[in-house]
């Protein structure tokens, strides 16, 4: 059976050229870049070139690029570094954050910090509520750019402006893991102090990512050598870094045409579903508000997992929740409720995400299969005849 992959937000395909680049670099630059010998020096030089390439692709300075194992580690470095602070102030995150951010609440509160959670309204952080939480004790703000389940683009720029209008400087971190390849991204323009990225979300290999740090230094998560300026000890994953850059390069250079194509796919999908009202697109496409390539739909009254299972049997991979932590229905459920969905919708929703390799035929077939499956399951569990 031909399979169609609609779970790009969980992970993407690995780009062929990224894999080829991995093989090539792993063979050529195998030596430890910290070594004094010629092979080591050559590896160190290559790594520096890669850092410059990453910086150029993200339009920042190479001194601001720190390689990590991915989004979770990048986020963790930021939050763990707080534990070294002499005074425990207030932290602001939103109710839409990924678990790698929201799960820090307990640890931070345990260490004496106050963690405020910004409310969300209809899939977006409530800026008024956010502003009311800012004060002179605020030490860190962490907000995500693209919500991983809903696809909503958060008003980070506006939020940062509110932060910058405070009398004291406040550190702003942005989880930008879902943004790459899905929207135009200018870190300088966002004016954040730090941002997290993950290679496998844009067709790079797993286990590598970037922490962008505008200036200054923060405490490392692990102890060891002086790699990545001491921020991320451990022998550098050069081949993965190079493969990530190959994927990032493709993503950045074809972003404009990709976004046009993704928008076209989205419009076709929404058009196909328009005639079938029981399936509802939660955030219909609106440029600048929602990324085209993440669609959140409600399939009431069919439970998400049941629907996803049947679709999988029909050859379509979609997500019934946030796939990062296995069987995390409960956590994504509370996220959906927090973003204004009704209990029914939260219980019966699917995330469909795609990319530049998705075809028009595939998205049409998905839309048709969604309608057919909804009708079939609705009939199976409905049609009650009360004879008693």
């Amino acid at each position: 059976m031909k399979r169609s992959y609609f779970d790009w937000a969980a992970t993407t395909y690995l780009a062929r050229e990224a894999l080829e680049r991995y093989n090539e670099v792993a063979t050529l630059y195998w030596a430890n870049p910290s070594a004094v010998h010629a092979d080591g020096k050559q590896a160190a030089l290559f790594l520096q070139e890669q850092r410059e390439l990453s910086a150029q692709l993200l339009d920042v300075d190479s001194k601001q690029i720190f390689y990590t194992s991915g989004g979770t580690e990048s986020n963790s470095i930021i939050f763990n570094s707080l534990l070294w602070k002499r005074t425990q102030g207030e932290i602001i995150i939103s109710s839409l954050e990924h678990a790698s951010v929201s799960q820090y609440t307990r640890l931070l509160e345990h260490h004496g910090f106050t963690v405020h959670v910004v409310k969300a309204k209809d899939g977006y952080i409530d800026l008024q509520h956010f502003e009311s939480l800012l004060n002179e004790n605020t030490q860190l703000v962490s907000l995500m750019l693209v919500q991983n389940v809903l696809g909503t683009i958060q008003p980070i720029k506006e939020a940062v402006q509110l932060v910058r209008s405070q009398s004291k400087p406040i550190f702003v971190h942005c989880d930008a893991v879902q943004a790459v390849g899905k929207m135009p991204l200018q870190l300088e323009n966002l004016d954040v102090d730090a941002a997290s990225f993950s290679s496998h979300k844009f067709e790079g290999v797993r286990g590598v990512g970037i922490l962008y740090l505008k200036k200054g230094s923060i405490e490392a998560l692990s102890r060891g050598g002086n790699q990545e300026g001491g921020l991320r000890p451990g022998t550098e994953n050069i081949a993965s870094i190079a493969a990530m850059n190959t994927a990032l390069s493709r993503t950045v250079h074809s972003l404009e045409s990709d976004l046009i194509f993704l928008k076209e796919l989205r419009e076709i999908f929404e058009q196909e579903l328009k005639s079938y009202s029981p399936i509802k697109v939660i955030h219909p496409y609106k440029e600048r508000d929602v990324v085209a390539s993440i669609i959140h739909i409600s399939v009431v009254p069919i439970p998400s997992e049941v629907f996803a299972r049947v679709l999988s049997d029909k050859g379509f991979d979609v997500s019934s929740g946030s796939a990062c932590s296995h069987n995390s229905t409960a956590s994504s459920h509370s996220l959906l409720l927090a973003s204004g969905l009704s209990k029914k919708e939260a219980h019966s929703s699917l995330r469909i995400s795609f990319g530049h390799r998705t075809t028009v035929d595939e998205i049409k077939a998905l839309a048709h299969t969604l309608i057919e499956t909804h009708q079939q399951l609705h009939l199976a569990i409905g049609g009650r005849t009360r004879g008693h």
Partner: protein
Amino acid sequence: MDTKLYLIKQGEIALKGQNRNLFEKQLKDNIKSKLRPYHNVFSRQKGRMFIEIDQSAPLSHIKHALSTTFGIVGYSQALRCSKNMDDITQVALTLSHQSEFIDGISTFKVETVRADKGFPLTSYEISAHLGAAILQEHPQLKVNVRTPDRILYVEVRDKVYLYSSQTKGLGGLPVSSAGKAMLMLSGGIDSPVASYMMAKRGLKQEAIYFHAYPYTSDEAKEKVLSLAKILSPYLQGLTVHVVPFTECQLYMKAHAPEEQQTLIMRAAMVQLSEKLAMQRGCKALITGEALSQVASQTIESLNFTNSMASLTVLRPLVGMDKVEIIDIARQIGTYETSILPYEDCCTIFSPKHPLVKPDVEFMRESYFSLNLEALIDKALQEVETVFL
């Protein structure tokens, strides 16, 4: 053949009258099947069973075999010698140097059972003689007859058997000595514990599981098979029948009044289990029901589901609370698997307000008016059987 000698204490079987031979034979067969492929020879003496096992059998294999077999209250690795005081003393001294005797102790005593009353020394004299010899060999030790750190056991029978440490067995009666029953196995905490408790009373079992794909996941089925695998050694092997239950469940959902659905489903499960039980030569059903744990386990609900079976329904957990059940689940190693988050019943089949005090006659009428016979028979024909 070089062998290891094990002494088995049988507990309850030793109290049996005329049927004792049958129980002992069953126990022997059960142990033998677990010691495979290692050669072993059994001999019996009053209240004791001795097994000589091929020297090459790993200790872990023997321990697993003896620790999971019902009917054994305790076992020890023993040394054997002729009924001659010099030989006995020599073997006692050998044993006194073994780590399981000498490690970490400062006091000991010798306890002698003289089954052969023709032996010239009394029990007391044998113990005193061996105690003195051990004291001479290990001057750092002291004798303490009330609370010794270690006991050296001596049993004078056809030969003399000596052993020091004793491992506790499971007790109970050998599996199959009470015939066979059909276990209604779900993925929860209770039914594996119910299975264990009835195995302890000598019941061989087969299990039935109701699978409602896609409303329950394949992971839920795999979880049940994992539980069955954990139970299998206690049950001397377990056959699991996976019943495709989707069609039945959808029919009941469409045709039964909502508040009755859980009870109707339970009744259908009992009816189907009984049919299969009879086909497979089982003489009872086993469930993990505990009184008033959920709506379908109130006394009124149990009266109704009970009325669907002509075989005895064994409910060993009926008077236990959840904490007690969890304690046993942890002890037998099923708890961690039982709490995996794969539901064995989809929410769409769970009414919001189920009946808790049903009228038996009313429910029976309601149930039989659904005419489920054909669907039940069809499900039975499509059963998938797995041997574990």
